[in-house]
């Protein structure tokens, strides 16, 4: 009972703090947080598929890319209003993604990861050669309509989107569907032996992941106002998503959020010290050490620290 109230209070305090944040920090920091919000969305999406079912996707930028490109092309080339282009982009991500991933759902382990990686690379190449008049080819597009202007507004928008997605996923994962998806990650044969169609379950996980990635990708492109293939279909972007989910705590909702903020700020604070790509080297090292120390991620470290604190306090009491 007490713990539940503490949870709700903690969440309320967090939301109030996040809403007050534009008053407390600089515009620059706010822009960093905006990126963290989007990264959290992508990491939650990755976690729904890979964190739960254990099917490691190396192709998430592929999904984010379909969402971003579809919405960008519809609004920039064909004059669709954003209110129409974003939902269409989400549908496109779910359809396009499913077609590509369907064969991948029949294979497992590292093969699955490699096939999804291949899709990302394929997409990178295709975007540049097929209909460059639409995609903008290698240079991409700029001057894409934005939803709102300014760091503060974009911060509120991205934070609301992230929180809504996180809450929705928290509710979904609490149901038996969430339990079944996690069970696939523990022992797929036993899920089948319990009378469940695992292909259908994996497809559901994939559709949910594609929905979130497409939604995030579309909002992201209308925040940036520009898009380029190398920035999206990029191995560094891919690993940032995966590491955010793993380092924060896979198979939870709050984990990928924590991981996204941790990584974004780590990269940001390393920037003045290490301006080049070496940054990724350092952050890779830090992620690895953290991961080896606690494979369940920062969330688990925090939880254990919290319970130790409580135990210590209870012990010190009269």
């Amino acid at each position: 009972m007490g713990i539940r109230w503490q949870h709700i209070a903690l969440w309320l305090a967090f939301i109030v703090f996040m809403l007050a944040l534009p008053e407390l920090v600089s515009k620059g920091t706010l822009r960093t947080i905006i990126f963290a919000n989007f990264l959290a969305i992508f990491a939650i999406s990755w976690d729904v598929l890979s964190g739960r079912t254990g099917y490691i996707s190396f192709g998430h930028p592929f999904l984010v890319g379909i969402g971003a490109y579809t919405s960008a092309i519809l609004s920039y080339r064909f004059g669709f209003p954003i209110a129409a282009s974003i939902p269409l982009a989400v549908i496109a991500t779910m359809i396009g993604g499913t077609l590509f991933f369907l064969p991948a759902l029949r294979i497992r382990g590292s093969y699955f990861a490699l096939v999804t990686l291949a899709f990302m690379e394929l997409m990178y190449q295709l975007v540049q050669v097929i209909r460059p008049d639409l995609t903008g080819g290698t240079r991409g597009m700029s001057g894409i309509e934005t939803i709102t202007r300014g760091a503060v507004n974009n911060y509120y928008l991205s934070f609301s989107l992230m929180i809504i997605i996180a809450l929705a996923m928290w509710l979904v994962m609490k149901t038996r569907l969430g339990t079944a998806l996690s069970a696939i990650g523990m022992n797929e044969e036993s899920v089948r032996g319990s009378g469940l169609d695992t292909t259908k379950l994996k497809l559901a996980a994939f559709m949910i992941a594609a929905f979130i990635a497409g939604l995030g990708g579309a909002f992201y492109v209308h925040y940036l106002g520009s898009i380029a293939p190398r920035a999206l279909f990029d191995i560094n972007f891919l690993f940032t998503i995966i590491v955010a989910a793993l380092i924060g705590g896979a198979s939870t909702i709050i984990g990928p959020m924590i991981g996204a903020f941790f990584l974004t700020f780590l990269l940001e604070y390393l920037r003045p010290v290490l301006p080049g790509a070496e940054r990724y080297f350092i952050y890779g090292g830090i992620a690895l050490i953290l991961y080896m120390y606690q494979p369940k991620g920062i969330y688990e470290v925090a939880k254990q620290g919290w319970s130790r604190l409580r135990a210590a306090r209870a012990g010190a009491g009269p």
Partner: protein
Amino acid sequence: MSYPLELKDVVKRFGGLTATNHMSFEVNDGESLGLIGPNGAGKTTIFSLIMGEHRQTSGEILCNGEDISSLPTYARIGRGVCRTYQIPRPFSEMDVLENIRLGLMPNNLWQMLTRNPDRYREIELALSVGFSEDDLHRHPAELSMGDLRKLELARTLATDPSIMLLDEVFAGLTAGEIAQIAELINKKRAEGMTLIIVSHDLRSLEPLIDRAIAMNHGSIVAEGSFAKVMADPDVRASYLGGE
């Protein structure tokens, strides 16, 4: 006349190895059939074929007269056939009740999403296989082999089967645990459950079965009452040679 389960001339080859060699047998409604044979005889393979975890090379598997040979596993479970595994396969990061929850889930995404788990039924199943109240929130790592087998039985029972295939239910158990599981099996028999039981522990198996089939090298060696099968010279030879 159709049987709850019938195998017709079933063959299964793994590469050059014939694990099931033209096997034909049937189980009667409410009957408890013992399937015995030395290591590698092909007992577990029969279960995998019946469940559709492996596909037979040739032959037919019928369930109540319907050919289920091409159905996926979940569809066979939907028709009331379910098995336990020789090596228990629990969900390692779930407690006893959550493990049972998987067996109770309908194979319907919408219902999984919108309907709450039936806590009462989960607890009822856990207690029915012999778990105590204290065990309900234990994780597989904290359970004994006997408890893991109970968990397998509970998750299998949760799918509401009319035919259960039990693979080595007594392996690795204490005498007390064997008695407990034997009692549970007898209870299910009394309720009319059709059973195929595989066990190396013949003494524990004998009182639980109506009929026995002895097999070796993927073929039936002898069939009939337990006493008759055990008296068969070929069965004796295969056991002496096999172990």
